[in-house]
């Protein structure tokens, strides 16, 4: 008997097939405004910016990226921006070739007010390592895409989300407290994370 069949046979014998699934959880009502999202994001070490109008975005990002070094932007960002100190993410590059990226500018979707997380899916971060290799990560978030809690956030995930091969929830910058519980930002990935709220992102 294969290991698979052996394990499954034992599990089948042990499983009782009695208790049914409890169904959906009804969470307590909570606020889903930018203010709450921004304050949670701040609490987890992130930097809320804005919200701005899309017309002001270019200017806001120039500020954030000033003197940063190599700035790379992902799909769905370029159309919102004019020319600036940034390059578009080249197609078909190896993740290793992005090791020197200082700032990654990516289009996020779905903000979660209760935990400051922003969703980033495979379409907007085609090179999966990019948001972790950069020194600074900037995510753009349409403010109307903020939901109160994780239940609604997951319900909002596009039906084909799991077909992008990766789908991230990112809440604040990379952090560790492994040395005497002292919080240090930038353990491996981005040392800082800014989320730019936009009122009318196309």
């Amino acid at each position, binding site marked *: 008997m294969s290991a698979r069949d052996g394990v499954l046979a034992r599990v089948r014998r042990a499983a009782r097939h009695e208790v049914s699934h409890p169904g959906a959880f009804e969470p307590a009502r909570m606020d889903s405004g930018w203010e709450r999202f921004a304050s949670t994001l701040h609490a987890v070490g992130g930097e809320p910016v804005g919200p701005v109008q899309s017309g002001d975005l270019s200017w806001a990002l120039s500020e954030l990226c000033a003197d940063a070094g190599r700035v790379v932007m992902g799909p769905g960002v370029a159309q919102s921006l004019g020319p600036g100190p940034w390059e578009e993410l080249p197609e078909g590059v190896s993740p290793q070739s992005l090791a020197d990226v200082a700032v990654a500018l990516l289009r996020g979707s779905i903000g979660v007010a209760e935990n400051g997380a922003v969703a980033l899916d495979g379409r907007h971060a085609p090179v999966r390592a990019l948001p972790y290799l950069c020194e600074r990560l900037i995510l753009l978030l349409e403010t109307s895409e903020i939901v109160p809690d994780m239940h609604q956030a997951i319900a909002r995930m596009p039906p084909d989300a799991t077909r992008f091969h990766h789908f991230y929830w*990112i*809440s604040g910058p990379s952090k560790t407290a492994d040395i*005497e519980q002292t919080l240090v930002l930038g353990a491996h990935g981005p040392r800082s994370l800014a989320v730019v709220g936009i009122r009318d992102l196309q």
Partner: protein
Amino acid sequence: MSELLDARAATLLPDGEPLRRHDAAVFDLRRRRDAAVAALPDFEALRTHAQAIKTHTLDYLDAYLERFESQAAAAGAVVHWAEDGAAHNDIVHGLLRERGVRRVVKSKSMLTEECGLNPYLEARDLEVVDTDLGERIVQLGQELPSHIVVPAVHRSRAEIGELFHVHMQTPSGESDPVRLTEYARRDLRPRFLAAEAGITGVNFAIAETGTIVVCTNEGNADLGMSLPPLHIASMGIEKVIPTLADLATFLRLLARSATGQPITAYTSLVTGPRAGGELHIVLVDNGRSRLLANSTHRSSLACIRCGACLNTCPVYRRAGGHAYGQAVAGPIGAVLAPALSSQAEGRRLPLASTLCGSCSAVCPVRIDLHGQLLAWRRTRAHAGAGERVLQRAAAVVLGRAALLRAAGALVRLCWPLLARRWPGNPLGVWLLGRQLPAHPGASFATRYRRLKGSKR
């Protein structure tokens, strides 16, 4: 006598400053948890819901495992099954060997600790680098993690600085956590870029979609699974949950219970390999199906490894994780050890608790941890023949009022002798750090008789 949590054992956290620091650091996580969960008015309901999902899932685990397997395979992942830790290590090594892999980066996985993967691979000339900072510290120190969420919490900054100095040539005497973390980052970044395979654990596996979910704060797992072409994810079979919607419940509970964060910095859902890469998922039993068949103890499989029971446990905080002698320490470690550990020592661990119940009260999936410890004690696997005879005798004495009073009278008579420390004093163990109370005088029964007798 066993050396578990014993004063003579080198594995017990040293008294004094290390003890004080450890207790404070770990209890601080408990405090953060308290603050975080207090912000959720429906937190207790959420725990109940999570418990219900887990109970259901374990009840249909066969169906969910098959569903997960077929969905993961449909997404392009290769699913492997391992009966035990040895089989798991063998599968992982086989995958690495077939591809000529020499350098592996690994993120935190309690399962691979349980299986002893690192020593297995290292003995086969592979370079395995733990990339979680805490795991890296214990790897450099050649020891087990002492906590499932903060593996190096038993180490002081000075000790970590010294380890880094020896292994990474950092300046001697450097003990600033910010700078030490930066040194580790600089040491690990090239290793990530050069790695040929990444091994990660799995926090949740979603049957509905074949997705694995990995939660970290550092982002190390993400670098490990997105830079090298080969990603191997190891998971116990109990990690499966039914649907994506169920994930929300667990994500709301996990980080809040662990560290008081509303969610970990990175929650990564991976469905199938990335373009040009490979994803292999190893499903490991290693005693879990046997535990599932045990109706008294199956609920311990609901654990999501948040570490809240360790943080709140007054015994764990005073003993340190190494005193438990297992990959997983603390209350959940003591509950799992008799079922999953290969060491006989593990069977004594259910005794290592005062049954204060704080673990059960924090558990996000409502495992009755102290009830579980008590239930393991009922198997009496810990008790030798001598102890059984003594207990039988004690039960005879405590079962008869006349014998109890006679024994009490004898103890009263010998009180001054028993109160002193001398070799052979039957109360010697009590007196190690305590004294006897003042002489109690006549028993309650005697005084009651006098009191009521005089009135009548």
